[in-house]
Structures are given as structure tokens and as C-alpha cells.
């Protein structure tokens, strides 16, 4: 079985464009929340989100071919371009068929879908512009990456909500391990739009819904909900030998992963997290690592009451006493909840930890919750060289995925 290594990272996030700016912001504990400008929130109680301010794809992508692309598609194309540039790879006629694209996206196309449908309802179906129809398929962002960069090996889109980003990376890693592809651009994307915002708002999931100032404070007893965000992350996964041969910089190796459903799951995460626990155990097994060899956990806690509690419970269950010695931090305190992009953004952050030797903080942490009593790296990053990191995502409908990455093994 071959090994999949990470040789390129492209990030578009509320705290920075490009991996260096992203890692730097995370290390500084910078947050990326601002007043929403993409749509009108005046009728609502919440006005802040992790909107990527002044996002302009033109400097990196050029003007050509951008006109009909929706925001998600622009975000993921910029991330893909940054990842390719970072990896130093060149896509040619010869290698194009050995390269794939695997992207997690769930609500990224929702605005395009709804707009298209509403135009038909309001103006009549004969007046709908067909050039916007291709944006209504959920595989449009990933497919536009293939079209723009001429990637012919394969193209996949996975839409498993919170887990989609890591699911897409695991799918990509399988393809490399099995020798079906040499290189895969893998990641996730989600755009901020009115429809998604309203959905989370009406479900009562957003922080600030009671009129207070929104705050993303995972694990803190004051936590009352998420700050919705947007972003895209693309990681270049490459077969190890090939990466070594071309002298590529290897940031990390994908050691193992597991996706495990929790049929006892509830929308408010009041369940005990058996599925997430299984996912972690299986991922460690596949990585051939003992629990004590994990040096850092990239948490998926997003400041909802149930999820942060459940994740803590699961970490204690799997790691026993050692749970208290592992730094567990949530970058969602800084970038917010990016849904299907979150797993890929978290993986990119953990890759930075391995590569640069730092642990990002959980910012906005003030008051301890007795049920959340692990080392959450409160408010300030730490300098620390680490070998292996575990990245988690859990979804309220029951999906869970855990992924283990390690430093280059040589």
C-alpha cells in the first residue's frame, strides 16, 4: 500500500488567504468576524459572520471564465490555485490523467440553487437564464477546478455536512494509497449566503440570536452557539515516492482515518458520542499509533452546548487519563463554523502545527465549564514540536470522521 503525503496547501479563510497568512493568524489568535455585507441582516438579531472581506479572485485567477461562477466556486478555485503554486506542481498533458479532485461541499451551491428556482417562480420558467443552471449541481465547484486546471484523473464531490471536508480528503487518500492516482487536490468549501445563514438562524444555532454580541467561545461555559463562516481549503495529496523524487517539501503524512456513524445521534449532540469514539479508535489503529502517541487534537467544537461537551466526553473515553495531557484546541474560535470546509481547514491547521511547531489556541476562553475540563490551549498559542495530530469532525445527523496525520516518517 502506498503512502499519501501533503505537499501543498491553499487556504481562503476569514483569517487569511494562503497558508502562511492562515498559520500566522492562528498562531496569533486572530479572529475573522465582521459585519455581513453579502446580504441584508437588518431584520435579524445577528449581523456578524466569518465573511471573507474584499474577496477578489481576479489577481490569482484572472478575469477569464469567472463571470458565471458562484462564490463557492471562486473560493475553491483560488484555494486550488494557491495549493498548486505552493506544491510546485505543474499540470501537463502527460500527468493530467493521474491527478484527481475530491471536494467536500454541502450548502455551497444552495444560494445558486435557490436563486435559479426563485427566478423561475417569479419571472416564469421560460425567462430563467440557462447559463446559471450548471451552478445548481453540487459538484460544480469541484468540476470547475478540474476545468480550470485541466485535471482529468477523476473528480468527486462529497456532501456529508460537517464531515464532508475530511471525508473528501479520506477519499483522496484512498485513491493514492491504492495507486489509482498520483496526486489529488482534496479539500472543502462553503460560501456564506443568506439561505444558509437563515437556516442556522431559524434553528437557533447562531451566537447572538438573543441580541447579545456574537462570540465563538468553544468549551467556555458561556457558549451559546456558532458564528457562521465561509472558506475553502485545498490540500495537495501526493504519493510519497513521487513527492520525494521531485524533491517536494512534505508537510505531513496521512496516517489513518475512519468514518463511523452514530445511530444514537441527536441534533443537539446530547448523545454520548460512541460513533466519534469508534472513528478515533479505528483511525489510530489504521495509523498504527497508540493513543499516547497523539500530541495534539484539532477539535471540531464550535461553541454549541452539546457538541463541545460530547467531544470532550469522547476524548476522555478514548484517551483515559492521558486526555488531560493532550492539547485540544478549536480553531473555530477564530474562524467560526465553515461547515463542509471545516474539516479541511482544521486539517490544514494541524498540518501547520506539525510543520511549524506550534499549537493554535482556543480564543475567547474565559469561564470553565465543569463538563469541559481538558487542556484547550486557552487564548494563547504554544510553541511545541509535535509528531502526530488527530483531527476530528462530527455531524448532528450522525456522521463522524477522525483523521491522523504525522510528520514525515523518514
Amino acid at each position, binding site marked *: 500500500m502506498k503512502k499519501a503525503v501533503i505537499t501543498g496547501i491553499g487556504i481562503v479563510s476569514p483569517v487569511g488567504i494562503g497558508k502562511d497568512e492562515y498559520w500566522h493568524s492562528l498562531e496569533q489568535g486572530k479572529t475573522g468576524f465582521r459585519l455581513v455585507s453579502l446580504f441584508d441582516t437588518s431584520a435579524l438579531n445577528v449581523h456578524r459572520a466569518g465573511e471573507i472581506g474584499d474577496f477578489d479572485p481576479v489577481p490569482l485567477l484572472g478575469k477569464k471564465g469567472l463571470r458565471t461562477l458562484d462564490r463557492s466556486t471562486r473560493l475553491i478555485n483560488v484555494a486550488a490555485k494557491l495549493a498548486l503554486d505552493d506544491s510546485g506542481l505543474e499540470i501537463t498533458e502527460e500527468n493530467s490523467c493521474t491527478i484527481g479532485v475530491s471536494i467536500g461541499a454541502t450548502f455551497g451551491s*444552495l444560494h445558486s440553487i435557490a436563486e435559479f428556482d426563485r427566478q*423561475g417562480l417569479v419571472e416564469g420558467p*421560460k425567462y430563467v*437564464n440557462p447559463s446559471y443552471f450548471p451552478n445548481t449541481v453540487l459538484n460544480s465547484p469541484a468540476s470547475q477546478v478540474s476545468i480550470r486546471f485541466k485535471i482529468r484523473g477523476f473528480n468527486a464531490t462529497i456532501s456529508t455536512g460537517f464531515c464532508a471536508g475530511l471525508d473528501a480528503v479520506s*477519499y483522496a487518500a484512498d485513491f493514492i494509497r491504492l495507486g489509482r492516482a498520483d496526486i489529488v487536490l482534496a479539500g472543502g468549501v462553503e460560501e456564506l449566503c443568506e439561505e444558509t445563514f437563515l*437556516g442556522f438562524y431559524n434553528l437557533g444555532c447562531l451566537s447572538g440570536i438573543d441580541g447579545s454580541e456574537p462570540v465563538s467561545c468553544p468549551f467556555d461555559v458561556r457558549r451559546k452557539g456558532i458564528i457562521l463562516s465561509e472558506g475553502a481549503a485545498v490540500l495537495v495529496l501526493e504519493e510519497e515516492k513521487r513527492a520525494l523524487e521531485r524533491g517536494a517539501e512534505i508537510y505531513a503524512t496521512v*496516517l489513518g482515518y475512519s*468514518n463511523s456513524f452514530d445511530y444514537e445521534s441527536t441534533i443537539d449532540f446530547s448523545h454520548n458520542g460512541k460513533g466519534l469514539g469508534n472513528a478515533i479508535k479505528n483511525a489510530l489503529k489504521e495509523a*498504527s499509533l497508540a493513543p499516547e502517541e497523539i500530541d495534539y487534537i484539532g477539535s471540531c467544537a464550535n461553541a454549541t452546548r452539546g457538541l463541545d461537551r460530547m467531544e470532550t466526553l469522547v476524548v476522555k473515553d478514548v484517551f483515559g487519563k492521558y486526555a488531560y495531557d493532550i492539547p485540544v484546541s478549536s480553531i473555530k474560535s477564530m474562524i467560526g463554523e465553515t461547515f463542509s470546509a471545516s474539516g479541511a481547514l482544521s486539517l490544514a491547521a494541524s498540518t501547520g502545527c506539525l510543520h511549524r511547531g506550534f499549537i493554535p489556541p482556543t480564543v475567547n476562553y474565559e469561564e470553565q465549564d465543569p463538563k469541559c475540563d481538558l487542556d484547550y490551549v486557552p487564548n494563547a498559542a504554544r510553541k511545541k514540536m509535535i509528531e502526530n495530530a488527530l483531527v476530528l469532525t462530527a455531524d448532528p445527523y450522525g456522521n463522524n470522521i477522525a483523521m491522523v496525520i504525522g510528520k514525515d516518517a523518514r
Partner: protein
Amino acid sequence: MIQKLRKQSLCSVPKMNKRVVITGLGVVSSIGIGWGQFWNNLLKGTSGISAVSSFDTSNHFTHNGGEVKNFMPKEFITEDRLESLNRSSQMALASTKLAFADSGIHPGYLNNYTVGVSLGTTLGDAQTIEDIDALLIEKKLIGRSNILKIPTYTAPCNIAKEYKINGPVLIFTTACAAGNYAISYGYDLIKLNRADIVIAGASDPFSRIEFTGFNQLNAVAPEKCQPFDKNRKGMMVAEGAGMLILESLESALQRNADIYAEILGYGLSCDAQHMTQPSVDGVAMCMIKAMKEAGIQKEDVDYISAHGTGTQANDRTECAAIKQVFGDRYKQIPVSSIKSMIGHTMGAASAIEGVTCALVVKNDIIPPTINFETPDPECDIDCVPNKARKHTVNIALNNSYAFGGNNASLVVKKYI
């Protein structure tokens, strides 16, 4: 003291040595609920196309579609659950129940195994989004239960909850090729030892968005779908679900299961050219990769279940690709499109066609391409016109292509 495990190999994923077989089939389609009725109607050449009734089409250019009008969710799902399930989930769950009943696996049996769900769809539940769009226009409040039905992945999660599943649960949204992506990932899950049994398939409800979009692209036929016919006028938007129970050969033999077919491998490719226009090279590469992974030669293919949507571009491109791949032999391979009968069920299409391929290799009968009237020199394949045909099929190739140039072909083999 830290107990260090020996790092013999950092990638200890087991080798791909398992054989994967299909042991249960479930279908929800306009020509039959359950594979028996569906198969009989396929062989008779029955059309499931009728006037669209789920929304007003008076302002559209065309008015026909492939709705499943006699689907009664209550026959499969208890009333207390029905409320929280969107149509996509209802059809997916119904076809799963049919497939499990067909496989002889009782729900209790699953407790001892790692079970996965691998589904495909184009939009998840388009109808929920469409209902909400109408409410948004009228500035009405969107209720909690409606919002909870939006996420694309509700169908696989609802199946997983119903059967208390603990394995991997995924959904692919690779548009009209999603079913093949889902089946092939299910095959990988078993091969890689990540699951013992996988529920694999796809579901898509009838969608106003798709109906309007394809109409605006001038891609919908007004009356009937006529794949490969010179005068073909387009596709027929439809709905449905197809589900397959996949398991390792040893597991199937152990429980003395009836085996429909074996999955030998699959191939994916991407056109990387255009969102809606297919490419001969992309489609050809997909078939070649599938055969390569399956370890078969082009001479081994006895039947091709075509993507065959009935649009000018698709059928012309697919036939050119078949010519390119199979050379001199291309006219000798029967190539039929069941979309001539049930229309294009979007993401569900290649799952329902996967069910069809399993039945073809099991029974050595090929369903026809109906509505075939005038040969097209650009589509001079043998499309099994209008009448089903007895034909020994050892290996079938199931083609599917999608928006974005996402191509997937699956190789299904007779189990002997």
C-alpha cells in the same frame, strides 16, 4: 510508560483481496416498485413517462416526465417517521427495505457486522428546497422541520438510523453519475475491509429545478425519450431510487445468499472541458480505466448499459467513445438505454442501471431501447431496438456521465 506500537508500516490498510458481490436489489421507479415489477416492465418495453403532476408546467416548453406516481411511502415507513423524511429519504429507505428483504438479511443480523451506507444524489431533496423557495418569495416563515430536511445527506443518515448502522456513511453529489460513484465507493469499503456489508445506491425526487433547467437548455423531449434515434429530441426528467446490498463473497457464501453478480471494478475520469458538454476522450478514458481495474479486455464486454440520455450531444458522444474504445467490435456489443423507458432519474440513474446490470448478467436477457424509429449514422451501435433480447452476458459495463464532466463506469460480472 508509553506503549509504543511497532511502526512496521505506517499505512496498515489491508490489501484489496476481497471479492465483492451483489446480494440484494431494491428499486423505486415509474415502471415498478421492487425489482420484480421493474424488471418485467423493462423487458416488456413499458414506458413510465406521463404528464407531470407535482407542479404546474403550463409555462414550461414541455410537460412530460418520469414521476413515480404509485409510490406509497406508508407501505414502507411508519407514519410517525414519515413526517420527518423528505421524498429523497422516503424513496431511499423504501428501496433499501426492498433490497434487504430481497437479500434475506434480517435487520438483527447486521448487529454483528460493520455496515456502511454509500449513496448518491444530484440535489439531495430538491423538493424541500423548492418548497422553501416558494415560502421565501411569499416572505413566510420557514419552520424547523422544513430546515432539518434540507441537508443533502439526510437520506443516507435516515437509512443508517433505521438500521442502527455504525460504519462509514457517505453521500456523493456528482450529479448524474452519483449512483455509480456510490456503488463503487461501497465496493472500495468492502475491498479495504472498512465495512462487511454496504447499502449502496442513489435517490433523487422529481425536481422543478431540474425540469426548468433542462428545459432552458433545450434538452427535454416533448413526448418521449428516444436514445440513439436520429430524431431524438432530448431527455426526460424523472425520479426514482435504486439500492444494492453489497457484501464480501465469503460473507455471502457463509449465509448461503443468492448472489446476483460480482463487481469487478470501476473507473472514473473527468472531461475537464465544459460543465454541460460531454467529451469523447473523457468518456472513453472512463471505460478504459474501468476495464483495466477490473482486469478484463475489451473483448470480454458483452453488454453496455448506456448513459443514453436521449440528447443529441450525449448519445453522439457516447457512441463515438464506444467506437474509440472497442474498435471493430463496437457493433457487436449490445448497448441499451433504460432511460428510454423511465427517463433520466438524475443521480439515481446509474444506481437503477446498476440494478439492471445485475439482473442482466443473472438472467442473460437485455432490456431494449424503446421508441427507436430512425437509425442515426452517428449512433450506429446495436441499441437493442424496441424488444428485449436473450443474450449471454458474462460482463456488463454500466456507464454514467454528469455535469462537470464527472464520468464513472462500473464493471459487473456474472457470478459463477
